[in-house]
């Protein structure tokens, strides 16, 4: 099964520090130790696990599917997805920040809503929220998302957009719905597919 996996710089697993071998070399975990199986992402899981490098991986043997990831006792790197780079990361963070703005607009007072409508510049979004005085909750999230897109990175920005969706909508379902939008954004630009 073809799936996706985020790794830290140098093809290192972000949580265990495991250095992945070159593409093509299989890595195995004990089949009877499901807690030690190798994790990977379906297309829809990708926004949850952002890191520096995105790889296409092949899983072999049984595949356990859970809510936000899949796991298998055997896997190998196939190829690094070069499209996931700092430039696309910044574009994605910006898109998530603008999504946060769009989600918030119906919940804002008219003056602030008018000030933010159609504004695509992230600095201008932050400035508009600051000018409005102590921001209501939704506007605070919008400013936070824009600030993070400018100065922190896509993982935090996309999470803030999902948090805003969760607060404005019906909790976890709205959070996951926003993640689904993010998954589509990434899949369209990176050519990600759900593989079998």
């Amino acid at each position, binding site marked *: 099964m073809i799936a996706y996996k985020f790794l830290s710089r140098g093809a290192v697993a972000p*949580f265990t520090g495991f250095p992945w071998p070159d593409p093509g070399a299989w890595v195995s975990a004990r089949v009877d130790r499901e807690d030690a199986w190798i994790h990977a992402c379906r297309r829809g899981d990708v926004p*949850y696990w*952002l890191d520096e490098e995105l790889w296409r991986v092949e899983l072999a043997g049984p595949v356990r599917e859970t809510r936000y990831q899949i796991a298998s006792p055997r896997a190998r790197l196939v190829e690094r997805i070069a499209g996931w780079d700092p430039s696309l990361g910044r574009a994605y963070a910006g898109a998530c920040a603008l999504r946060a703005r769009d989600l918030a607009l119906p919940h804002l007072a008219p003056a602030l809503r008018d000030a933010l409508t159609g504004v695509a510049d992230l600095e201008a979004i932050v400035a508009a929220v600051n000018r409005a005085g102590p921001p209501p909750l939704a506007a605070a999230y919008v400013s936070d998302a824009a600030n993070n897109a400018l100065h922190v990175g896509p993982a935090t920005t996309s999470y803030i957009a*999902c948090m805003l969706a969760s*607060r404005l909508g019906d909790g*976890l379902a709205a*959070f996951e719905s926003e993640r689904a939008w993010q998954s589509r954004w990434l899949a369209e630009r990176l050519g990600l597919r759900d593989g079998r």
Partner: protein
Amino acid sequence: MTTRPVPDLTCKELVELVTDYLEGRLSADDRTRFELHLTYCDWCRTYVEQMRQVLAAAGELTEASVAPEARDALLAAFRGWKRGGGGGEP
């Protein structure tokens, strides 16, 4: 569908679970929630890495490896703490 607002942990919850995480004692669901948090929270990522280093270093310590003067200073500090003297200088 659960009504939980987000799928992961808060920073406070993560701090409470860090030892279990590093010792491999979390359930699969809790481990997923723990690692979901780490993907976007640089502060917690740093904290977990520091705790990992502390545990690795502490795991190498044995009673015999502690210098006598350090052992005496620690024992004096613990005795003072037990008497209600707080955590002042040993």
